[in-house]
């Protein structure tokens, strides 16, 4: 070891001693600082990936339906196209009808009565 290296080794040893000789209060503060630094690490957000994939899937599906690449109803099911225009006209018909409100409230009863009459007709 050269004289220069020996001198530097001595300096290094003195610095090591000064670091090793830190008092307990200082070491405690260092420990608290270290724990605080480690505590800031946010836990991994494992739910983000599946949630993001689900949201992306919904968006892709909506975009495909919106552009007409996918049918908006199940094939084979009866379609009831309801546009704003037809909906508005059916409402007008309902309001302007001469039938009383009780008639529409008892609509299920009349449907049942109609079915009964049809059965009787078929039976006779």
């Amino acid at each position, binding site marked *: 070891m*050269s*004289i*220069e290296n*020996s*001198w*530097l080794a*001595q*300096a*290094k040893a*003195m*610095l*090591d*001693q*000064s*670091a*090793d000789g*830190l008092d307990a209060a*200082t*070491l405690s*503060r*260092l420990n608290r*600082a*270290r724990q*605080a*630094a*480690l505590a*800031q*690490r946010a836990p991994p957000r494992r739910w983000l990936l599946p949630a993001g994939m689900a949201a992306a899937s919904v968006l892709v599906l909506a975009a495909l339906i919106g552009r007409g690449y996918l049918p908006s109803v199940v094939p084979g099911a009866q379609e009831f196209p309801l546009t704003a225009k037809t909906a508005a006209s059916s409402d007008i018909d309902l309001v302007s009808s001469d039938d009383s409100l009780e008639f529409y409230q008892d609509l299920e009863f009349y449907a049942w009565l109609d079915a009964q009459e049809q059965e009787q007709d078929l039976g006779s």
Partner: protein
Amino acid sequence: MTEPVDLPTTLERTLDQFLKGVERRALRMAELATTNRDEAMDLVQDAMFGFVRHYAAKPPAEWTPLFYRVLDSRLNDWHRRRQVRSRWLAVFTRDPEDDESDEIAQAPDLNDPGPLLRLAGSEAARDLDAALTRLPLRQRQAFLLRVWEGLDVAATASAMRCSEGSVKTHLSRALASLRRALEEHA
């Protein structure tokens, strides 16, 4: 059987061990720069936070120069703030020979037994401390990172965010200044 909750992950344990391994030297480095333990403690804590926030995901083999890069940045910031204050107070006492001195004239004489050999015990440590405190920040950091921390030139350059040539220049000047300062006390 109950499972323990919040067990630290392997990464957290490795991080804890790493910081535990460097924190004392980091504090001493900051203390030599600030000559104030409380301020040094704040800087080290800031460096720990910055390191964990920005570099914890890096491979552990790269952590040492990255940690000292953060600490060096904090020390530079502290030094700049102090310089601004010093201008107002007009007590800036930097050695004017620092940047313009002749490197060859300052090169250490290898036949000399060395200044620390002539100093004894705690007096030598105190004189070394004082000599290190008087060094310009960049020279002190180059000395501490190369000689004390044992980083190679490339890692020191990475930590100090400068070229390897600058590291060598800072270190050469630091060695010459230290030798000269310690000779005066021998």
